[in-house]
């Protein structure tokens, strides 16, 4: 089998070799605790400071103290939302969207059980928000707005810069889960009204288990973890120094490759989309196609099931992911596809291809060649597919004793 092709970079990326190399000394001779009052610690403290500055550069943040390291995107999301609720205890409402990552969605679901009112903004067929709906629920009863920068399944951007300004005008904190956006598109937080932003190292060729919450200076904050005074008392616990160093290098590399991500990688993604859609009938790309991450392509293949597609792709060394119910062990296909109103005939067969700067044109061409026979093969097995197209009125042609 030829070399494997990794097109699942929205799930996680390969840690850049430069980042790994930079981290290694911090497991061995540079083991000091940055808080310690001796030279072992001081050197490490300087390295952490440099790493923080590099991440600050990637975000376009005004101050390096606006960065609070966390154990990842999930912790940053939880910290942001729970902090806002503690900082504004009299406000019992949260605005978010119906297509957030589970890190926000499930937390809000829990808060709803505890008595908070959650406004989940709807999306249209292309995954776009209606700002009028947003404006209508934005009030002084809202503790925080949490809206993702880019959706992890479709790559669709939300107008968070604009939405943050609207929140500020209403005197409401604004948080964005930018886990998929950071490192892929240029950010300029100092000139935005965004109060809090979550990011995760392993999505931008950094190590796993490290992330950060950007907290605009002056925004009210209450820590999630209390203990030692690390991160200026905002996130207790001895710093994960090697990972912080690795994330610093990853941020630097992301800055250097930003143009490439938005030109070469985007062109590869577009080539993949055109190649597959030209060869496979009854398939379409989901999301807001002119307004999405440069690396993400989500295709719905009608009348086939996503996990089966993934298994056949995997057999040829191609790694992608699916929004099908079966891959998650749940009964429902992806909440993002359902929120966009993608019919069940297609929602179970959605495949996400997410690229990175490590992908080549030759790889993309191999995938373009591999996909059509896989879909054809599964459709041949399917009771919903006839000789060369879906059976007419599939729901009727297939009439089970129950549904």
């Amino acid at each position, binding site marked *: 089998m030829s070399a494997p092709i990794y097109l699942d970079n929205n799930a996680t990326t390969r840690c850049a070799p430069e980042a790994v190399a930079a981290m290694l000394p911090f497991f061995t001779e540079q083991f000091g605790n940055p808080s310690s009052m001796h030279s072992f610690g001081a050197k490490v403290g300087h390295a952490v400071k440099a790493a923080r500055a590099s991440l600050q550069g990637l975000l376009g943040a005004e101050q390096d103290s606006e960065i609070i390291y966390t154990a990842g995107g999930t912790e940053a999301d939880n910290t942001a939302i729970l902090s806002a609720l503690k900082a504004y205890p009299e406000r019992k409402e949260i605005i978010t969207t119906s297509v957030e990552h589970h890190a926000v969605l499930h937390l809000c679901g829990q808060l709803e059980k505890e008595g908070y009112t959650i406004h989940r903004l709807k999306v249209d067929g292309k995954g776009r928000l209606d700002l009028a709906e947003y404006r209508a629920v934005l009030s002084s009863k809202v503790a925080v707005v949490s809206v993702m920068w880019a959706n992890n399944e479709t790559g669709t951007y939300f107008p968070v810069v604009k939405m943050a300004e609207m929140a500020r005008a209403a005197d409401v904190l604004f948080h964005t889960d930018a886990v998929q956006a950071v490192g892929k598109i240029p950010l300029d937080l100092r000139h935005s009204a965004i109060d809090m932003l979550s990011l995760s190292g392993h999505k931008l060729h950094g190590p796993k288990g490290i992330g950060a919450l950007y907290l605009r200076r002056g925004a009210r904050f209450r820590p999630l973890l209390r203990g030692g005074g690390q991160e200026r008392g905002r996130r207790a616990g001895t710093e994960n120094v090697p990972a912080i160093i690795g994330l610093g290098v990853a941020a630097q590399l992301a800055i250097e490759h930003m143009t490439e991500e938005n030109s070469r990688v985007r062109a590869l993604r577009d080539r993949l989309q055109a190649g597959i859609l030209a060869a496979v009938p009854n398939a379409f790309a989901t999301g807001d196609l002119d307004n999405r991450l440069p690396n993400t392509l989500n295709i719905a293949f009608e*009348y*086939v*099931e*996503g*996990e*089966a597609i993934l*298994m*056949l792709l*995997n*057999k040829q060394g191609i790694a992608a992911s699916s929004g*099908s*119910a*079966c*891959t998650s*062990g*749940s*009964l429902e*296909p992806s909440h993002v596809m359902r929120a966009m109103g993608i019919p*069940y*005939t297609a929602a*179970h067969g959605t495949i996400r291809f997410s690229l990175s700067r490590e992908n080549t044109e030759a790889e993309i061409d191999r995938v373009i060649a591999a996909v059509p026979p896989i879909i054809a093969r599964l459709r*041949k*097995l*399917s*009771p*919903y597919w006839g000789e060369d197209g879906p059976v007419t009125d*599939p*729901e009727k042609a*297939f*009439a*089970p*004793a*129950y*549904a």
Partner: protein
Amino acid sequence: MWDYSDTVKEHFYNPRNAGPLAEANAVGEVGSISCGDALRLMLKVDPGSETILDASFQTFGCGSAIASSSALTEIIKGRTLDEALTVTNQDIADYLGGLPPEKMHCSVMGREALQSAIANYRGEDWKDDHAEGALVCKCFAIDSVLIEETIRANNLCSVEQVTNYTKAGGSCSSCHEGIEEILAKVMAERGESFAPGQPPARKTPGKLSTLERIRRIEDVIARARPNLLRDHGDIELVDVEGKTIYVAMKGACSGCQMEALTLGGIQQQMVEALGELVKVVPVKLAQPA
């Protein structure tokens, strides 16, 4: 990625008996595209002997749905309809070298398609009575619908009871939060509220006969013994005097640091079994000479 057995993978990559069966005289269809899996099973049945001469399937679904369909057709070919009806979903899973708990429903779908096809052949109506819920207990593959129905049917009110009735939550215990949520919901329906950590409200038992009391005490002892034996110890009932139960700890258990703990546990079980406060007191048996 699921931890599929090699047999599952093999049947998925090389499905047996896939595609329409021209001479089919029994067809069973289950599932739907909205559920994410659907299976059409086609049989060619010999009218005289009711033997399944040929079987084929068409499936929309994940890897294990296709593998389960393939396995099913292999299992039933050559059997009579009555023999085929004895095939359980566990048989299908076993044939495949096991299925991940999240995927057991694929084998259930296979068995249902088979029942539906046979009903179709016999001109009977076949109705599925199995609704499926979200998987709650991954260790034992128990879904929310089963838990909910069991709680409702038996008036359960604690996680422990749910575990006793369904096994759900009996292993790693990470689904206890989910079970509590279902308990709270069903108990609310019957106008009760779920109180975590409290032993189930016990109906005050009528006074037990002496014989019944001793039986229950012996039961608790019997249940405790296997654990003690495993640790090279043992326990024996010596006497019961009013509310005091005398036991002898033997072997490695006698005088070990865990003795008090073990006795505490046994005492708790005695209290629950008898519905009254009792004390379990260890006694030293005279050592055999």
